[in-house]
Every structure is written in structure tokens, then in C-alpha cells.
């Protein structure tokens, strides 16, 4: 008889559904960002170090040019591969490619990711192509020393 007046029990659990929604969104965000970063940057490149670099706050309108060293050493036949968004661009077509990119987006900024061991004779054509395409702003990607 004592328990006659007890109110029906209510579910005291915390509603975790919104929490799961938010967390799943965050995970998808990290996955996408990681995927995009992986697509833009190519593995196998040892970035050189520099003492006097700076952070880029505005990372919009970037076009990352990767210079990947050949596996068998350098020669006139085995030049570094020029990769943009994982697409190999022949050196002879780079200026035209950049010119088209510049036409599509006049605010474009080139980021050069080149391996530290690449001889300058393979880097200079990329700089010349940028200049020929009218791209004035080039960012050399480096790492902090240590």
C-alpha cells in the first residue's frame, strides 16, 4: 500500500543523440580535411628547412605545385615529376596550365613543395613558368628547423 502513491518512473538518461550528431559531423570534417590535404600534398618530398619563414594566414586560392624527386637519381632523362592535385604536368605544358589557372582565378597563389635535394636546374623552369603565367606570388613551403 505504501507504493500506491509513487509516480511512474521516468527515463533519467541523458539524451545523447545531439551529441552523437555533432561528433559524427566533426569526424566527417576531419576525414574530409585529411583527404583534401592528402590529395594536395604528395608523399615522398623532404621539405627544406628555413629559419625565417612565416605562417600563411590566408590559405585561400592556393595552387600547390609538388616537385617529386625520381627514385633512381637525377639525370637529364629522369627529371622530377611536377604534380598538381596528383596530376602529372609536363614541364613544357606547365606555363599554359598556370596561365589557364590564373585566368580562372586571378587571385591564385602558387605554393612550391619541392624536395630539398632537387638541383636548381629543375626548379628554375617552374619559377619561370609562374612568371610567364603572370603569377607574381610564390610561397616556398619549408619546415622550421629542429
Amino acid at each position, binding site marked *: *500500500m505504501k*507504493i*500506491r*502513491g*509513487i*509516480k*511512474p*518512473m*521516468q*527515463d533519467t*538518461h541523458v539524451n*545523447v*543523440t545531439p*551529441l*552523437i550528431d555533432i*561528433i*559524427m559531423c*566533426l*569526424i566527417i570534417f*576531419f*576525414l574530409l*580535411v*585529411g583527404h583534401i590535404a592528402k590529395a594536395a600534398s604528395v608523399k615522398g618530398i623532404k621539405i*627544406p*628547412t*628555413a*629559419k*625565417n*619563414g*612565416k*605562417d*600563411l594566414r590566408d590559405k585561400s586560392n592556393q595552387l600547390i605545385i609538388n*616537385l617529386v624527386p625520381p627514385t633512381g637519381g637525377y639525370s637529364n632523362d629522369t627529371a622530377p615529376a611536377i604534380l598538381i592535385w596528383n596530376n602529372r604536368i609536363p614541364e613544357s605544358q606547365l606555363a599554359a596550365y598556370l596561365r589557364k589557372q590564373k585566368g580562372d582565378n586571378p587571385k591564385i597563389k602558387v*605554393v612550391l613543395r*619541392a*624536395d*630539398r*635535394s*632537387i*638541383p*636548381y*636546374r629543375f*626548379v*628554375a623552369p617552374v*619559377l*619561370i613558368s*609562374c*612568371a*610567364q603565367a*603572370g*603569377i*607574381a*606570388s*610564390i*610561397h*616556398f*613551403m*619549408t*619546415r*622550421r628547423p629542429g
Partner: protein
Amino acid sequence: MARSTKHKSRGMHSAHHVGPNMTPMVDVVMVILIFFMLGSSFVSPDWYLTNNTPAIKGGLSNVKTNAMPPTRINIKLRVRGTRTIAILPGLQTADLSGELATFLTNKHKALSKGVPVQVFISPSNGVPYKDVITAYSDCIQARFKQVAFRPPPAQ
């Protein structure tokens, strides 16, 4: 026993959780989230040397060197054995990040303020990219604002 059952069915209705138990899923998802957050923080942030190269409309034949400041410093980079040597008027050193940086800093101080200076980095064909970057970093450290890269000499 029968009495107790009778009372329970009459007065209170125990709550039943009909949905799936979300606790293990939340645990796993939180672990994944923490993994991604830590993984992204371990990746060292990018660090850039920014350069504004002169845009050339119509190709290299249209470059007007007269438009550049008359005060110029030419840093030649040459390969000697396995090392890269920087050659300037008054300096020849293999210590790119030390001696060259100090020399350029003193050079910048010696020049009167407000005078624009054009610095050229002229590497030869075989100079590794990292040494070109080091020389360029030295120029930035010395506060030279106009730095350009020359094409390698034709072989």
C-alpha cells in the same frame, strides 16, 4: 508475491528503454574524434618563404632589368664537391646559414635607409634546392625585400 505483483502493475510503470544502447557507440566515436584531433595537432604547421616574383607578360624576352633598382647584390651559388659555396664581392663562404646571413645583414645596415636594393640569387645548375632556400632565408633575415632568382646559366 502475488500481492506485490498486483501492486506493481497497478501503481507504477517501470520505464523501458526501447532504443539501442548508445553508450558503447559514444565511447568509440569519442575515441575516434580524439585520435583525429591529436593526429592533426602532431602534423607540424606549414612554414613559408614568400616571394613576389616579377610577372612577365609575353615571356622572358620582355624582362626589363632597367626597371629594377640600380643598387644590386648578386649572390652566386656554386657547387664545390659536395658543398655549396656562396660567392659575393668580398665574401666566399660555405657557411650559408651563418657567415652569409651575417654578411648580408651588415650589408643591409651599411646601405642608407630608403634606398631600394635588388638582390639576385644566381645558383648554378647543380645547386640543391635546400641551399637556394637557405640563401633566400638569409636575404629575408637581412631584411632585403626585393629578391629574385636568376635562371641557371645555359650549359
